[in-house]
């Protein structure tokens, strides 16, 4: 975890990792779909609450980690929502104003984006990237593409560590003391990273040849637990959310 990707670490340590992708996929992608398809209130709100309960409950992300993961999308949602809320016009000089229609659209957007983000977290925090790629393979995405994606994942971890080590070393020698130095440091760092990623690939190719690598990077998939109960429960939950959301305006 030295590279500090909190989402990645959460996924690998989640109790749900051993569940089959089919089960998790139906639930998590179902929630995501509900978040963007259903009216934000109550559909999106319900998805947000359910996702939050799943994340803090069975997926065991924990509050502190969730905040650490969540602040970046939260900030970017807020900037976007604020931009939608404020209207501009320039017919008679530049004017900024907040209209009722703008505010309503902004609130709807905020709820939908928040719900979708939390729904996406249920997948990202319970399923390592590599399992998702294995799922894509089963969806007939060609092998070479999956292999390259899996290697990108593996290389990225080491390269992120290199990037932070280079940054620390440059900082220690005052590499970010002013703008000129910063530009020089950044360019040297990027060039060094390029060479390192290239070198890494070459050396790995050598190492894999000894293990019989010719034209495919086949590996065996670890066993995963399928549960029809889990699947049925997920479907029921999604149906319930959808039904409630669609009948909401009628019952009110």
């Amino acid at each position, binding site marked *: 975890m030295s590279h500090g990707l909190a989402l990645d670490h959460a996924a690998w340590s989640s109790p749900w990792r051993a569940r089959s992708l089919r089960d998790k996929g139906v639930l998590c992608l179902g929630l995501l779909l509900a978040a963007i398809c259903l009216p934000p209130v109550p559909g999106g709100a319900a998805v947000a609450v359910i996702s939050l309960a799943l994340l803090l409950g069975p997926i065991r992300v924990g509050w502190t980690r969730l905040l650490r993961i969540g602040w970046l999308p939260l900030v970017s949602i807020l900037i976007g929502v604020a931009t939608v809320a404020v209207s501009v016009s320039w017919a008679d000089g530049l004017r900024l104003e907040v209209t009722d229609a*703008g505010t309503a659209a902004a609130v709807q957007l905020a709820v939908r984006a928040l719900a979708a983000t939390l729904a996406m977290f249920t*997948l990202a925090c319970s399923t390592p990237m590599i399992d998702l790629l294995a799922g894509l393979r089963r969806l007939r995405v060609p092998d070479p593409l999956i292999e390259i994606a899996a290697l990108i994942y593996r290389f*990225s971890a080491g*390269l992120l560590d290199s990037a932070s080590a280079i940054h620390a070393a440059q900082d220690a020698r005052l590499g970010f003391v002013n703008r000129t130095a910063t530009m020089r440091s950044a360019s040297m760092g990027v060039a060094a990273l390029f060479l390192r*990623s290239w070198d890494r690939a070459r050396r790995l190719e050598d190492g894999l040849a000894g293990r019989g690598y010719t034209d495919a990077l086949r590996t065996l998939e670890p066993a995963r637990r399928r549960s029809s109960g889990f699947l049925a429960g997920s479907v029921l939950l999604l149906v319930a959310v959808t039904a409630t959301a669609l009948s909401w305006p009628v019952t009110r």
Partner: protein
Amino acid sequence: MHIAEGFLPVIHCVAWYAVSAPFVIHGARKVITEAKEHPESRLLLAAAGAFTFVLSSIKLPSVTGSSSHPTGTGLGAVLFRPPVMAFLSTIVLLFQALLLAHGGITTLGANVFSMGIAGPWVGYALWTLSNRLGWHRNVGVFLALAFADLSTYLVTSVQLGLAFPDPVSGLAGSVAKFAGVFAISQVPLAIAEGILGVLVFRLLTDVAAPELRRLGVFGAAKEAVA
């Protein structure tokens, strides 16, 4: 700045997926052909993808003193060509969404179009044009990187503007609004990315000439000149 998860209405999500798909499939086909002809290129393509991913997650100083993430797609387009970048950017954006919570799955199609297709093609077009006009390589690199970055953000502004027309001033207003928030603040960053690219390229020609030759970067420059 990618479009966050859940930010676009469902129709827009589907539409951008549909618009991006042909480009990504075209890139993926090229990648598959390359991987089948030269098995070792899988590892090199993966190195290129990891490089792009890490580049997009490190901070870049801006001329104004604030800092932001470079898109890296201009550099990628020059080094690895736009079709390959369309594929690699899709992977990188998927990773950014699921590993960094930056971007999203529902907005992946839109983000791929701005960062993986529009940016690289604009950058590559300027790189080729500059080479053809016989301009200095540094000019080509600067233009490619700066405008790949800038066009990515402009396209993002248009995408958001289309999704959220301003109740007062309509589509024009909303695009101007988002461009104001994202693209204008991006101009200094685009310039910074362009300058950085020139410096990086100078270093790479010093120490990585064989690698660049293998990628065909020098060849492209020469071919375009001739």
